[in-house]
């Protein structure tokens, strides 16, 4: 039976074979038109595997076989915007959910999906894989950025990309970065001659990670050196001391900078007090709360900008400055008019009364803004830092605060020495009775001078809000420091406060580096006690008759 129908079957088989050939040709055609289908679905799904090692294998495979697709999927994965849905991967591109392979938009609600988890290990590999692929990009800027990134963190896995890029790169700036990157990637090479070349490439790049790689070569595993080759070890030792010499410079500069930064903060906190206490002689325990008012003014300005002009949110600190000055000055003048002026010449009562005022102001802040710290964000132009040396990065917020402190200092000096108000203030503090005789309204001058000191404290508060916590008690942390600066510098003038702030700032930072923050704080207080005992008038006290009484 079966043999008889065979020819018919054979014909049918031939037809079906033809059809299947046609279909497969079609598939090949589709694959050719749509290159992204060439990679196996299972390879791509490896990106969403549970195990990190499997993911790493999948990343490598994807980058090798489908660089173009990889450049679309991997950045999304790095940003945590890659999702798995059954057997497909979804990514977010320009705010839209798309199928990772085909690029078509998908109606899936991604908020219900778990994104593909990336940890630090994967993040590092993803970043360097993406940078590696971008080394071959068309755009020069993109290539330079990738080369810079790799120059910092290249590992052996990046070597193929770097070799490829070095073979075709012509731009000298990029080539220099590539050289360093190559050094870092090749230092683990099994070939001693290659390692020697890598050491030479790292010798002139004084960044911390070169130091780390070179130092690793100098280590011993038990009795044997990590670096087995004698001449390479010699070269590494020489390169290491060269790199360390250059790094030491950065370290010391960084320490001086942090001292300067602390000094600028101390100065801003103390400048207002230098007027109210230093010049007017009022022991104002509520000075810290005036700083707090300034900081809350910054917070209020920020909230206002967020609510009404979110497009200009980055510029709120500029608007916060006048707001803080006015708010603190008004509060200060009210304190002076209502309480302090009745107590002139009675320092103990002033001390107690202003301390009470400070408690009232703290509680008021608690009632209005709540007891918890509020968030005052750094605007983008104050985030990040300026890289001066590979190991010396100056944070923008601290740089700007140093400049700001100098500006406030100059403005104060100008007001006191160049304006009529300043003239009156100096006259009243030097000889109140005589000033009144020649027609100076001493009561009004007292109020204005106190307002000026308070307003400057408000400005300090804005600066503080950029680097520390804003809360009702924040003033308490600065009142002691402020008095230290003013008393140490010598009551009665600005220059003393400047030198005292500088001295305290730099000394604190060097002590901290040497003995830790807790001991540094104790040591600084001890030093001040000794200094005050030896020189009760402060380091830079004014000499003359006016200050005697």
């Amino acid at each position, binding site marked *: 039976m079966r043999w008889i129908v065979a020819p018919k079957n054979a014909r049918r088989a031939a037809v079906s074979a033809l059809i299947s050939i046609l279909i497969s040709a079609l598939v090949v055609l589709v694959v050719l038109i749509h290159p992204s289908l060439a990679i196996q679905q299972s390879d791509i799904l490896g990106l969403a595997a549970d195990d990190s090692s499997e993911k790493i294998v999948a990343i490598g495979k994807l980058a090798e076989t489908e660089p173009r697709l990889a450049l679309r999927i991997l950045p999304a994965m790095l940003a945590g915007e890659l999702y798995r849905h059954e057997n497909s991967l979804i990514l977010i591109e320009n705010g839209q959910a798309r199928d990772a392979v085909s690029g078509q938009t998908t109606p899936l609600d991604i908020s219900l999906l778990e994104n593909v988890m990336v940890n630090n290990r994967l993040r590092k590999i993803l970043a360097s894989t993406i940078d590696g692929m971008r080394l071959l990009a068309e755009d020069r800027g993109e290539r330079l950025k990738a080369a810079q990134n790799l120059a910092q963190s290249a590992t052996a896995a990046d070597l193929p990309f770097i070799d490829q890029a070095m073979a075709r790169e012509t731009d000298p700036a990029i080539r220099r970065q590539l050289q360093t990157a190559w050094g870092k990637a090749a230092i683990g090479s099994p070939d001693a001659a290659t390692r020697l070349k890598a050491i030479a490439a790292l010798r002139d790049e004084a960044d911390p990670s070169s130091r780390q790689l070179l130092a690793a070569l100098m280590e011993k595993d038990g009795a044997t050196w990590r670096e087995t080759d004698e001449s390479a070890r010699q070269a590494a030792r020489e390169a290491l001391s060269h790199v360390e010499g250059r790094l030491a410079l950065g370290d010391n500069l960084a320490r001086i900078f942090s001292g300067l930064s602390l000094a600028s903060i101390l100065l801003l906190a103390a400048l207002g007090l230098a007027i109210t206490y230093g010049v007017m002689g009022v022991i104002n325990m509520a000075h810290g709360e005036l700083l707090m008012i300034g900081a809350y003014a910054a917070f209020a300005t920020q909230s206002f900008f967020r609510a009404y002009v979110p497009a200009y949110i980055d510029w709120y600190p500029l608007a916060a400055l006048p707001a803080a000055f006015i708010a603190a000055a008004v509060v200060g003048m009210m304190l002076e008019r209502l309480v302090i002026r009745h107590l002139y010449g009675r320092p103990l009562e002033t001390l107690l009364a202003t301390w009470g005022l400070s408690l009232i102001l703290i509680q008021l802040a608690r009632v209005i803004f709540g*007891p918890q710290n509020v968030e005052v964000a750094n605007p983008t132009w104050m985030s990040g830092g300026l890289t001066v040396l590979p190991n010396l990065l100056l944070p923008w917020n601290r740089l700007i605060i140093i400049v700001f402190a100098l500006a406030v200092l100059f403005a104060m000096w100008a007001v006191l020495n160049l304006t009529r108000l300043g003239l009156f203030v100096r006259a009243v503090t030097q000889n109140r009775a005589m000033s009144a005789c020649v027609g100076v309204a001493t009561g009004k001058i007292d109020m204005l001078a106190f307002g000026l000191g308070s307003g400057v404290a408000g400005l300090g508060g804005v600066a503080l809000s950029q680097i520390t916590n804003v809360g009702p008690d924040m003033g308490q942390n600065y009142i002691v420091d402020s008095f230290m600066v003013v008393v140490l510098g010598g009551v009665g003038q600005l220059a003393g406060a400047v030198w005292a702030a500088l001295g305290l700032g730099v000394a604190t930072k060097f002590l901290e580096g040497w003995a830790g923050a807790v001991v540094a704080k104790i040591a600084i207080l001890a030093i001040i006690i000794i200094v005050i005992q030896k020189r009760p008038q402060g380091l830079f006290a004014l000499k003359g008759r006016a200050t005697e009484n």
Partner: protein
Amino acid sequence: MAHGRLLSLFLGASLFLGATASFVQAADTIKVGILHSLSGTMAISETALKETALMTIADINAHGGVLGKQLEPVVVDPASNWPLFAEKARQLLAQDKVAVVFGCWTSVSRKSVLPVFSELNGLLFYPVQYEGEELERNVFYTGAAPNQQAIPAVEYLMSEDGGAAKRFVLLGTDYVYPRTTNKILRAFLKSKGVADEDIMEEYTPFGHSDYQTIIAKIKKFAGAGKKTCVVSTINGDSNVPFYKELGNAGLKATDVPVVAFSVGEEELRGVDSKPLIGHLAAWNYFESLKNPENSKFIKMYKEWAKSRNLPGADSVVTNDPMEATFIGIHLWKQAVEKAKSADVDTVIAAMAGQQFNAPDGFTIQMDEKNHHLHKPVFIGEIRADGQFDVVWKTKGPIKAQPWSPFIAGNDQKKDEPDAK
């Protein structure tokens, strides 16, 4: 024999009657104390715990209270002032006659109230991870012991996925919890073959706000040839300047990861978390966990924040100590219902083995003996939105070891509190 049992029953009953007499007279509410700093350096962390406690109590009251009685919260503010904690605790126990206190965050505050609780035979539920080395009859610890947080976190950092760290910076605020935890960690690291010169310990005072020197030191230490990581036990609002400085100084998690034991969703609210992506925290709960209990818990807290008009109510978050507070109050309620009384001694006995479906997604259990919870451990990496991605977790809850085996002499100590 029968005679003895009868006698002890009688004695027990009379004790029970004597102790509960005050509650019988005090109409039909049970007073519950809440002892958290609402001002000062710890307010950043503790205020949310007070709110959680009030929310949980309101929820229990809305569902009929405990033993048919409404709970009446008594809130005091010890203001981040450790001796004041003891005073306020005494006030709660002696004057307000509360049946139980939920409170404390820092170990120094807990240590300062302990004598009060044992003297007046009060009951404290402590909701925060801590250093162990303690087992008090009057305290139930609903936060993690070191083996439920610190040790797994460091093990993770030493694993390939965690970056195979070889050098460790132990950075903390200067008080008992960081010092003890770091002592345990140092012993643990030594047992894993880490040399002393590969460990750096640094401490800062409470409220410290200038982290430039510390970050510079970390950078220098990290540049010495081996993969370095930072284990941070910084507490309170110092974390905000620390993380700000970390972000500005460009210390990336892929180079030097920082794992923190006291930083959660709440502390990160005040920080721009974009530069901090990938830094880690180890806890027994994260808000980002997906399970029905957690969704309920988050929803409940968000609605509570809105109804109470809390500052920033639309962006409130939940975190581990809040979950531990929530669990603690429910376990206490269950124990009171089991004991049919809010009397401290009977509740302590009834607490053993209590179970609860927690927002961490597991049915967790109070240990039969050691007053600690069996908890799962999660390690999370900070995301751009200030939440955490869980990158590692235990298979299930693990038992607490309040007496860490990494401290000499602890093998002699027994795993239960001394009887009264």
